[in-house]
Each structure stands twice: as C-alpha cells, then as structure tokens.
C-alpha cells in the first residue's frame, strides 16, 4: 500500500466513501486519490463497484458516507451537471451518445458547459450567438481532426458502427476540456486494432492536452501499459492501490482478481 496522501498534488481525493442501495452495499469505505496529470486505472472483477465509483465521482450517486475533495476543496452535494461544470467529463460503459444528433452536434454538446450566450442572443443568432458557436466549432473541429472522424461529421451517430460511436463518445468527453476525464471501459467490445487505436487516442490526449484520466478497463494488458497507477476494487472494497507492477505482484489482488478473472 503505497498510496500517496499528498493532497497538494491530488486533483481528486476520495475519503472513506461508502455507498449502498437499500441495504445492499456497493462501496465500502473506499479512499484513494487521483493526481494531477496521471492516468489512473480502476480495475476489479464484474460487480466490484467500479462504475458505481465513477458515478460517485461525477455526482450521479451520492455516497452515504465519505468526502470527495476536488481541485483542493471539499465538494458539497452537487448535482451531476454542476459537477460537470467544475471540470469532470466522462464516457459510459454502454454508449450514451445522443442518437438523434450528428457527430458534430454530439461534440458541440460536450462543450455546453462552456457556452453561455443568453436566450435572446440565441434567438437573434447573428452576433453573439453565432460568434460563440464558431469559436466552439473551431475547438470541436480540432478534436474531430485529432480523432480522425472528419468523414462522419454530419452523420447521425445512431447510424455509426460501434467502434466509431465509442470514438465519438470519447470526442464528446474531450470537447468538455475537463480537468478530469473519466473513461468507463473505453475499449470494451473492440477488436485488437480498434483497441490499439483507442489506446493511442487516450495516450495522445494525455500528452497533448495534459488531461488527468481515470479509466476502468478489463484488459489487463492495456491497463498495465498505459496506467500510471492502479486501484483495485473487489466486492465494493479497495484491495489494492499502487503502481502497475506493484499491484500485479500484490497477493491480495492476485487472489481476488487476477487469479479468477480469466474464467
């Protein structure tokens, strides 16, 4: 256990988080932190509470106990959209794109927290609203180029194949230019080539934008390759936390997870 309790450098720290649904404990007394600029992986077997963890981080679930410190201050009971505004973006395990909208509009929606022309200007459009729209369009076009999805810019995302949808969803999260990016199984259901592409995007994002990333992933190879540090959950409890190599060597983790994961 070599958890760095240095909150000075931590972008997000969770302290003694417990979450339950009507008596069923989903998370029990979990503490860990995410440092600025790192890629932090959350791993664990199915039902370990990984997605619940992300839901706590972005405020969709409110834990019964524990504290969430973000960007150096204790976070109150905020609504998810307020938390998004503070700078947390995410992707979802089961793609949660806006199916009726085009790729471009999905990405533009990702920037919604940064747009603020009022309704009257929007109604008139010419002037403020158009200017703002164009500014953000530039940013989004940059992401489109980055993710190499120029050709599907105007396509409704419902019509796209799975792999591309995952990419668009990543794009939407990137568009938010968040401080912390949460990726919930970004590579699930992909073939090897798609996984490689996605890995490359994640690493590029990390390098190019310097975004702090927390990701859930099942593919241990991927995790070990790209994560700076790993936290391991099992049955809602934290059973390991540290550098990939340390975690890999941790007997608890091997027993609980690695040993039985490839069943």
């Amino acid at each position, binding site marked *: 256990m070599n958890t760095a309790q240095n909150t000075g450098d931590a972008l997000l720290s969770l302290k003694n988080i417990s979450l339950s649904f009507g008596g069923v404990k989903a998370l029990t007394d979990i503490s860990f932190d995410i440092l600025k600029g790192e890629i932090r992986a959350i791993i664990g077997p199915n039902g370990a509470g990984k*997605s619940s963890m992300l*839901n706590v981080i972005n405020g*969709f679930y409110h834990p019964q106990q524990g504290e969430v410190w973000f960007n150096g201050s204790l976070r109150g009971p905020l609504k998810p959209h307020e938390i998004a505004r503070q700078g947390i973006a995410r992707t*979802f*395990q*089961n793609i*949660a794109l806006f199916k009726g909208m085009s790729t471009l509009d999905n990405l533009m929606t990702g920037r919604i927290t940064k747009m603020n022309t009022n309704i009257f200007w929007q109604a008139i459009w010419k002037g403020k609203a158009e200017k703002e729209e164009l500014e953000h369009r530039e940013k989004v076009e940059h992401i489109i180029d980055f993710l190499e999805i120029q050709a599907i810019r105007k396509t409704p995302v419902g019509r796209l194949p799975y792999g591309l949808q995952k990419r668009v969803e990543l794009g939407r999260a990137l568009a938010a230019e968040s401080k912390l990016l949460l990726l919930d199984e970004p590579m699930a259901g992909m073939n090897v080539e798609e996984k490689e592409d996605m890995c490359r995007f994640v690493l590029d994002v990390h390098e190019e934008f310097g975004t702090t990333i927390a990701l859930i992933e099942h593919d241990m190879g991927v995790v070990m390759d790209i994560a700076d540090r790993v936290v391991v959950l099992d049955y809602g409890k934290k059973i390991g936390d540290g550098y990939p190599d340390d975690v890999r060597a941790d007997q608890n983790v091997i027993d609980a997870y690695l040993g039985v994961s490839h069943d």
Partner: protein
Amino acid sequence: MSPMILNTIEVILNGLMAGVMYALVALGFVLIFKASGIFNYAQGVMALFAALTLVGFQTGQVPFSHLINVVFGTNYHHWSSGINSFLAILLTMLVMVGLAWLVERVVLRHLVNQEQIILFMATIGLAFFMEGLGDLMWGANIKVLDVGLPSGGSFWWEDVTREWASEGSEYYGMYIDVLDVWAAGIAIVLVIALTIFSQYTKTGRALRAVADDHQAALTVGISLRTIWVVVWSIAGFVALVAGIMWGSKSGIQFSLSLIALKALPVLILGGFTSIPGAIIGGLIIGVGEKLFEFGIGPLIGGATENWFAYVLALIFLMFRPQGLFGDKIIERV
C-alpha cells in the same frame, strides 16, 4: 347514522361504481400496452365500433347500406328483423377477432421495433380509420342497445339503507344503479377470466412471457404476431364489454369513443402495465372525483370531474412516477 354520513357513503359507493366503469375501459389499454408496448389510442373507438356492430347484428342492419344505396341506387336497410343478442355478441366477437388479425397483418407487422410514439401514432391512424368505417358501415344515427341488462335505482338497497338513518331524520335511502352493480359483477368476472386465461392456458402463459421480456419470449419460440392478434382480440372483447355497459346508458353514438378520455387518468394512476392497477386506479379516480365534486365542487362552480381526475392522478404521480402498480423505473448509466 346521520344523513350527512350516509350521503358521504352514498357518494363513495357511487364513485366506486363509476370507477368500475372507468376501469372497464382502462383494462383494454393495459392489455395491449402490457403485451406489445403500444399505447392504443384506438381503444375508445374500438368500443364504439364493437357496440355499433353488435347493434347492427341485433337489428339486422345491412352493413354499408348507405354506400351501397348511393352507388347502386338501391334501397336496402335491413336484411332481417334482427337476431338473438347472444348470437349477435358472438358474431361481433368474430368481427373483432378479424379486425385484430387485420390490424396485425396490415399495420403492426410493418412497425415492429419502432419507437413507442410511432406505434402510438399508428393507433391514432387506426382510430381515424375505424371512426370512418364504423359510421360508414352502420350509419351515424343514435342506436338503442338492449342486451337485457337491468337498469335503474335499486329499491331494495334504498329500503335497506333507509333503516340506517337515525330516528327522525328525513332520509330517502341510498341510491345505487342496478346497471352499475351488473357492470361491477361483469368486471370481476372479466378480471377472473383474464387471470385464469393468463395463468392456466398455453397462450396465456405465452402472453405473460412476452409481457415480461420480448426478446426472451422470441428466443423460446413464441410467435409475437400470434400473440399480438390474440391480445388485440382480447382487447376487442373488453372494448365490446365496455361499449355495452356505457352504451346501455347513453345509446350507441359517436360520443361513446370519448370514454377513452375517462380511462387515461386511471391508466396513469394505476400504471400502464398492471391489470389490478387499472381496477384500483379506476376506483380511486371514481371515488376521488365524486368526493371532490361534492365537497369542493359547489364552492368553485362544479363540473370539476374532468380535470380533477387528471390532477388527482398527477398528484399520485409526483410521488410514484411510474403509477401505483407500474414497473419501477430504474435509472442507470
């Protein structure tokens, strides 16, 4: 008991009876929604259509006589002086089954896997179509329906309840419409029959399987199309019953299709997917709106029932967004 209390009991009792009548209509909605996820806007029109057809058979009308006479210059109206009620009901049921088959064949089959609102819209098209068809077949004039059900206030109940009033108070006894009691009885029989059908017959079990999980039902080899025909036939039967009960009061006419509006608050209250919900929702709405009309209505000018039913349902929904008995909505990401 003081007349005041007795009056309140009377209002509640009649509210319950009205509730049964609402539930009868709501039942048809629930059946179809449960089995196919379709909010069937045409349910009210189906009741009208079934009742029109029933009277048409009973009195021996020639269907489409107006059209035939216009096109061929003939003058046909009736082919017989009428047939037995029971036989007419059977024939009407056959027509409703045929209709269900046609609906599946011509419309629903082509809309499998569409969004709910599209299916809803298709039933609206169906409602329009059947409205025109019903009138064209049987004419738009008012028709008297008599299948031998009694009606009128019950003397017996009046006498019994008069005894309950405290000494010296002027009390006329409690009112209850015999037709309503019959309706309640028929509703109970109907629900029992539906329960037996869905529990103990093969088709019924298939029906429940489909209601639980479409995909799973398909994989074990249940034909969705057959199920849809069956469920629309049953809904047609329920519509016929509702049409008879409501039509006995007002005669068979276009307005009969508007009874659907009375069923909607019942549906949201009881949940779209629950048969007991439809019954209990109906009773709550019936009692609630009658009590409100009596208690508060006179203070604000009356005729409150139409909107109060919805407001009542709305208040319930604020606490249980899926209705009283609806499947719980689980939000996840």
